[in-house]
C-alpha cells in the first residue's frame, strides 16, 4: 500500500515539477491548448467521458458554475483562511436576486410591460445587480462576524447559510415558498429559425451544442475573467495581507495589516463571486427552489476546495470538476444492485478522509508564486552588495 502510494506521489511530484520548470510562454501555450480542448469537449465527447442520463454539455455547465464557486470560496477559505460553512447562502442570494427580479411569479417582477427590463436583456442586466446584492450581503454578514475567529466564525456562517434557505422557504409571499420561482429570464442571444429563443434557452436541448454547452462556454469566459482578477489580487499587497492573516493574525496586525478590513474584503469578494454563480444557475435552470441551497451543498463546495488544494485557484477548479463530473458519470452504473451515482456523499466523505491522511494539502497544493515581479526580486536577492550598510 505504502509503496504504491509513494510511487504515485513521486510521479505526481515529477509532473508538478515539470510544470514549474516551464517558462511563462510555454505555460501559456499549454494553457491555451488545454483550454481549447476543455472548451470543445462537449462537441467532441470521447465516449468514455460521456455522462449517462444528462448531456455532457449540461454536466460541463454545472461544472462551470461550481468552478466559479470554488474560486470564490478559495479566496475566503484558501487565501484568507476564514472557514465559511455557509457559502451556499451567497449562491442562493445571487440566484434569488435574479429570480425575484425576472420571474412572473415574484411580486418584484420587473419584466414585462410595466417593468424596466426588456426581456432579451433582463438576465444580463440582472447579473451585476445580483453580484452587488450578494457583495452587500457578504458585507452585512462580515461586519459583525469577522471579529470572530476559527471555529466560531464557521458556526456563524453555517447559521447564515441556513437562515437564507429558511427565509426562501418561509417568506411565501415573496419567494413563493417551497414551490419556488419559475420562468426566470435567460439571455436571448443568437436567435435563429432553429432556436427562436436563442441558444441559451432550455428549448435548445438537442445535439452536442445544446443550451448546456452554451452555458458552459459562458461560464468558461467568466472563469477566465475571474481568474485574472483574483490573480491580480493574489500578487498584490491584498494577497499578502490575506495570507499573513491566515498564517498568524496577531502578528499580521502588529506588522501593520488592517486585518479586519482585509478579511471583510475577502468575504465581500468571495460573496460577489458566489452571487455570480447563483445568477448563472438561475438563468440556466430558469427555476429556483429552496432545497437547491441546502447546507449539504455548502459542504460539497468546500469539498471541491479542499480536494483541489486550498489556496491554489487552478487546483480548486479541478476539485470542482471531480465534484460535479464523477456523480454524473457514475449515475446509472450499478454495483451489487446499488446505483453508484447516488452514493456521492459517501464517496466524497471517504475521499476526504483518505486525502487528510495521505495528502492533507490537497491534490494540487498552493505553490508560492505570489510575486508579480518575481524575476526582478530574484535578481535583487542574488546581487552581492558591495556595501551592505544602508544610508543614515
Amino acid at each position, binding site marked *: 500500500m505504502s509503496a504504491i502510494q509513494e510511487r504515485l506521489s513521486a510521479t505526481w511530484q515529477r509532473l508538478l515539477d515539470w510544470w514549474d520548470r516551464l517558462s511563462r510562454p510555454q505555460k501559456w501555450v499549454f494553457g491555451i491548448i488545454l483550454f481549447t480542448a476543455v472548451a470543445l469537449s462537449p462537441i467532441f465527447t470521447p465516449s468514455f467521458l460521456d455522462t449517462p442520463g444528462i448531456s455532457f454539455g449540461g454536466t460541463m455547465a454545472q461544472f462551470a458554475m461550481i468552478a466559479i464557486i470554488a474560486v470564490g470560496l478559495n479566496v475566503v477559505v484558501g487565501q484568507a483562511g476564514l472557514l465559511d460553512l455557509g457559502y451556499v447562502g451567497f449562491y442562493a442570494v445571487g440566484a434569488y436576486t435574479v429570480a425575484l427580479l425576472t420571474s412572473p411569479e415574484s411580486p418584484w417582477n420587473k419584466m414585462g410591460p410595466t417593468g424596466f427590463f426588456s426581456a432579451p436583456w433582463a438576465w444580463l442586466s440582472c447579473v451585476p445587480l445580483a453580484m452587488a446584492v450578494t457583495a452587500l450581503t457578504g458585507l452585512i454578514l462580515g461586519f459583525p462576524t469577522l471579529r470572530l475567529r476559527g471555529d466560531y466564525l464557521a458556526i456563524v456562517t453555517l447559521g447564515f447559510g441556513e437562515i437564507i434557505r429558511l427565509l426562501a422557504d418561509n417568506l411565501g409571499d415573496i419567494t413563493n415558498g417551497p414551490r419556488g420561482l419559475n420562468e426566470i429570464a435567460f439571455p436571448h442571444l443568437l436567435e435563429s429559425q432553429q432556436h427562436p429563443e436563442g441558444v441559451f434557452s432550455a428549448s435548445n436541448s438537442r445535439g452536442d451544442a445544446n443550451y448546456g454547452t452554451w452555458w458552459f462556454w459562458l461560464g468558461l469566459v467568466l472563469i477566465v475573467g475571474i481568474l485574472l*482578477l483574483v490573480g*491580480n*489580487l493574489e500578487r*498584490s*499587497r*491584498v*494577497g*499578502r*495581507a490575506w*495570507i*499573513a492573516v*491566515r*498564517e*498568524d493574525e*496577531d*502578528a*499580521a*496586525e*502588529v*506588522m*501593520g*495589516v*488592517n*486585518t479586519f*478590513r482585509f478579511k471583510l*474584503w475577502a468575504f465581500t*469578494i468571495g460573496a460577489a463571486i458566489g452571487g455570480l454563480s447563483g445568477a448563472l444557475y438561475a438563468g440556466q435552470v430558469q427555476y429556483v427552489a429552496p432545497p437547491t441551497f441546502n447546507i449539504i451543498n455548502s459542504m460539497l463546495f468546500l469539498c471541491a476546495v479542499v480536494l483541489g488544494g486550498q489556496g491554489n485557484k487552478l487546483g480548486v477548479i479541478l476539485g470542482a470538476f471531480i465534484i460535479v463530473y464523477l456523480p454524473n458519470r457514475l449515475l446509472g452504473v450499478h454495483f451489487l444492485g446499488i446505483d453508484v451515482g447516488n452514493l456521492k456523499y459517501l464517496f466524497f466523505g471517504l475521499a476526504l478522509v483518505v486525502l487528510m491522511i495521505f495528502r492533507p494539502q490537497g491534490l494540487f497544493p*498552493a505553490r*508560492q508564486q*505570489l*510575486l*508579480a*515581479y518575481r524575476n*526582478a*526580486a*530574484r*535578481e*535583487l*536577492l*542574488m*546581487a*552581492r*552588495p*558591495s*556595501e*551592505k*550598510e*544602508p*544610508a*543614515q
Partner: protein
Amino acid sequence: MTAPRNDTAPETVKANIKDLAGFHREIHAGVGEVLMQITDLTVKFGGLVALDAVTFDIRRGEILGLIGPNGAGKTTCFNAITGVYRPSFGSVTFDGAPVGRIKRHQITRLGIARTFQNIRLFSEMTALENVMVGADARHRTSVPGALIRSRRHRREEHEAIERSAALLHFVDIAHRGGEKAKNLSYGDQRRLEIARALATEPKLLCLDEPAAGFNPSEKSALIDLIRKIRDDGYTVLLIEHDMRLVMGVTDRIVVLEFGRKIADGLPTEIREDPAVIAAYLGVPDDDIS
C-alpha cells in the same frame, strides 16, 4: 531556490541597496530627545498587578535594555507599549502622541515595530514576502488598485520588492530570500523577524529576547547587527536575559522586578547597583533581618 550569490548582478542593484534599506520618509532625528515617554504604566490581570506604576523614557538613537528576572513584567511592559495590552492606568506617549486607545495596526504606522519572543513569522510565505508584508504597512493600494493594477500599485510593488531585498541583505539572509520562512534555520528566522519589523519603517524597534537559543558566536553577530541598526538612526528597545549581551550592547538599562522599576541607568551603574544584584542573586539571610 537555493541559488548561490552571483556577481553578475547589475551594478545599479549593488549601488541601490545602500539607499534602499534606509528610510523612505523624512524623519526627525534629534538624537537624545525623548522619543517615548512611559508614565505610571500599570497593567492588571484581574487581581494580579503585572506592572505597577513603571515610569521611564526612551530617547532617540539609543539602545535601551529592559531587564529583570523571570516574571518581572518585561514582556507585559513590552506588550503594553506596542498596544497588545491596554494599560489599566498610566500613559504611553510616543513622539508626542498618546498610544492609549489606538488600534494595533495604527501603532505600527506611528512608528513602533516589534519582534516576538517565540518567533511568529508567516511560515508559508517566502522570506522576501514576509518582509514585504512589513513594507506594505506604508503602502496605500487596496483592492480596487490591485484589481486594475494601477500605476500606484505597480510603483509600490516594485518599491516593496527592492526595499525588502535590501533589508534581507542588511540582515545577511538575502541568499535565502526565496525560501519559505518555515524552512529557514532558527537564527535566520530571528533575523528575518528583525528585517520584517524594520520594513515597517519604525522609529522605535522593540526586540523581545532576540538572542534566545543562540550560541555565543551567534550572539556576538547579533550584537553587531543591533549596533548596525542603531547606527542607521533607529532607536532600539531590547528585552534580554543574557547579561553579557545586554551589558555589551545597550546604552542604558531599566531593571524591573515584580512589576516595579528598581533601577535605571548606564550599564556600569546597573552592574554595581545593590538592588539589581539582590534581585538577580538574592540577598544573604543576615541582611534580611
